[in-house]
C-alpha cells in the first residue's frame, strides 16, 4: 500500500475500492446506454414495419390505389425479408443515411435539417432557464418553510406539475394573446428564424418550463430543508459561517442530488413537451415534422425522427445519471 493511496483514503473519501466501484458503475451504465440504443433502433423498426397484413396496402390509406401500393412496396423494399431490411436500414443509420420520404421522395435528412433549428432553440432556452428558476424557487421555499411564500410555491408547483402542456398553453394564449394582446398567439408567419421574434417564444418556453420547473423545485425544496436541518449545517453555523455561505456552498450541493436524479425524467417530459408545444404554437420544428409524418404515414420520416428523438433521450439520460452520480457518489442510480 503506497502513501498516496492512504492519503487519498483519508482525504476526499475516494479510496481505491470506491474508485473501482465507480469505474465499474460507469462501464455498466455505458453498457446499458448501448443496450438502450440498440433497443431504440429495434423498437422503431419493429413498430413501424411490423404492420399486420400487407404493409403497403395499410400505408396507402383508406382507398388503396394500386399504383401507390406498388410505389410504397418498391420504396420500402417490402419484397425483401424483414431481417434484410433491418440490416440495410440500420447500416444506413450508421452512415447517417436515414432513407427517403415516401410522400415527397426527398431524403429524410433534409427534413431533420429543416426542423432542427427551432427545436434546438426551444430546448436550449428551456434548459437555460430551467435550472436557475427551479433552484431559486426551491431555495426560496425552503428558507420560508411553513410560511406564506413556501405554502404558495409548494401548492402552485404541486398543482401545475400534472397539467398537460396543451391545456395550460391554450389558457395562457387566451389570457395573454386574446384578452391582453401582449403576445402573439402562435408563431405562424415567423418562419424558422424565431430568434428575430422573441415575443413569439415567450409563451412556448413558459409552457415548456412549467412541468419540469415544478418537479425540480419541489425536490430542491425538500432536499434543502433536509440539508439545512442536518448536523453538518448546524456545525457550520456554530463555527459562525455566514448563513448565505452555509446555504449555497454547504447545503445546496447536497440538496441538488435528488433533483439531479430527477433530471432524467425531466428530459422525457421536455421531448414530449416539445412535440406538443410545437403543435400548439405552430412552430416548424422537429415535433411538427414528426406529427406531419404521422398524419401522412410517411414511414421513413417517422423512423428517422423516432431514432433521433429516442437516441437523444438515451444520451441525455446517460448524462443525467452521470451527473447525479457525481452529486451522490453513495446512492446507486439506475443500473
Amino acid at each position: 500500500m503506497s502513501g498516496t493511496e492512504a492519503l487519498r483514503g483519508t482525504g476526499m473519501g475516494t479510496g481505491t475500492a470506491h474508485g473501482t466501484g465507480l469505474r465499474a458503475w460507469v462501464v455498466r451504465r455505458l453498457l446499458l446506454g448501448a443496450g438502450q440504443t440498440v433497443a431504440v433502433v429495434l423498437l422503431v423498426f419493429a413498430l413501424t414495419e411490423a404492420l399486420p397484413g400487407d404493409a403497403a396496402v395499410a400505408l396507402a390509406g383508406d382507398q388503396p390505389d394500386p399504383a401507390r401500393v406498388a410505389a410504397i412496396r418498391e420504396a420500402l423494399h417490402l419484397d425483401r425479408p424483414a431481417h434484410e431490411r433491418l440490416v440495410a436500414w440500420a447500416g444506413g443509420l450508421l452512415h447517417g443515411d436515414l432513407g427517403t420520404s415516401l410522400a415527397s421522395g426527398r431524403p429524410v435528412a433534409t427534413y431533420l435539417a429543416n426542423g432542427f433549428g427551432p427545436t434546438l432553440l426551444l430546448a436550449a432556452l428551456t434548459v437555460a432557464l430551467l435550472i436557475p428558476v427551479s433552484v431559486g424557487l426551491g431555495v426560496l421555499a425552503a428558507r420560508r418553510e411553513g410560511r406564506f411564500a413556501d405554502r404558495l410555491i409548494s401548492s402552485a408547483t404541486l398543482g401545475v406539475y400534472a397539467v398537460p402542456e396543451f391545456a395550460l398553453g391554450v389558457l395562457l394564449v387566451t389570457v395573454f394573446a386574446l384578452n391582453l394582446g401582449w403576445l402573439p398567439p402562435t408563431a405562424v408567419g415567423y418562419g424558422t428564424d424565431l430568434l428575430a421574434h422573441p415575443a413569439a417564444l415567450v409563451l412556448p418556453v413558459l409552457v415548456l418550463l412549467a412541468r419540469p420547473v415544478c418537479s425540480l423545485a419541489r425536490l430542491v425544496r425538500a432536499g434543502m430543508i433536509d440539508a439545512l436541518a442536518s448536523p453538518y449545517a448546524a456545525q457550520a453555523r456554530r463555527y459562525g459561517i455566514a448563513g448565505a455561505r452555509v446555504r449555497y456552498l454547504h447545503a445546496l450541493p447536497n440538496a441538488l442530488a435528488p433533483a439531479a436524479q430527477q433530471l432524467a425524467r425531466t428530459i422525457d417530459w421536455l421531448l414530449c413537451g416539445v412535440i406538443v408545444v410545437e403543435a400548439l404554437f405552430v412552430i416548424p420544428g422537429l415535433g411538427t415534422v414528426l406529427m406531419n409524418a404521422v398524419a401522412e404515414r410517411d414511414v421513413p420520416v417517422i423512423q428517422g425522427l423516432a431514432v433521433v428523438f429516442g437516441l437523444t433521450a438515451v444520451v441525455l439520460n446517460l448524462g443525467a445519471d452521470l451527473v447525479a452520480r457525481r452529486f451522490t457518489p453513495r446512492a446507486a442510480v439506475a443500473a
Partner: protein
Amino acid sequence: MKPRTITARRGWGRFALALLITGVPLLIALLGPLFAGEPGPRGASFTLGGGHWAGTDFVGRDVWRQVLLGGRTVVLTALSATALAYVVALPLGLMSALTHRGWLEELLMRPLDVLLAVPSLLLILLAAAVFSPGAAGLALLVALVNIPDAARIIRATAAEAAARPAVEALRMQGESWWRMAVGYVGRSALRTLAADAGTRLTGVLYLVATAAFLGVGVAPDAADWAVMVDRNRTGLFVQPWAVVLPAVLIVALTMGGNLLFDAALTGRGQRRTPRREPLPARKEIRT
C-alpha cells in the same frame, strides 16, 4: 412548533379545496353524459348565443353538450390504463424483489431498464402511426409505457420490505411464500404504492389527454375534452368558450387530482417532506 389542531385543520382545508377542484370536472365527466340529452340541430360554426349558452364548436354543435359528453373517455381511459399498468407491474416487481435467483431478477428487470429511456409520448405516437388505435388501444399503449417505471418502484419498495428482520423470522417459522410475499411484504409496501398510484394516475391522465390532443386514439370530431381544445383552436378568437371550457376542466382535473392525492397521503400522519422539527442546536443558533 405549531399546535397539532391548526396543522390538522389546515390539512382538512387543503383536502376540501382539492376535493372541490377535482370534484367538478370528475362529476361532469362521469355524470355529464346522463344530462347531455339529444343532439340538437347543428348551427353555424363558432357562434355565440342563439340558444347555445356556451356557443357552438367548429362544426356547429352545442359546446355545452360536447363538454358534458367529453370527459368520460378521458377519465375512463386513464383509470383503465393505470389499472392495467399495475396488473402487469405488480407481479413483475414483486417477483423480482422476492426471488433468490439473480438471473430471474435480471431477466425481468433489465428489459424494462432498456425501455425506460424511450420517451413515452414518442412510443405512443409511433404505435399510433401504424395501428391507428381506438380508446382501448390508447389505454393499452399508455399502460405499456407506464409498466417499466411502476415495476421498478414496486421492486425497490418490496425489496426494502423483504430485507427486514421480520421476513427472516417468518421464513424461519416456515411460513409459506405466499404469506410472506402478500401478507407481509405486499402490506408494508402498500403505503408507497398508494402514493405511487396517485402520481401515476395524474401522469396517465396527462398522457391520455395529450395523446388525444395530438389525435391518437380518438376520432377527429370526437366528444372529448382534449379533442375539443385541438379542433376548436382555430376559432379561439371568435368563440373562446369552445376551447376554454374543456381546457379549464382538464387543468382542474389534473391539478386537483395531484393536490388531492398529496393532501390525502400527507394528511394522515406522515408527511412526504419532513416538517419543521427544530433541533435544539439549531434553535440556539437561530436566536
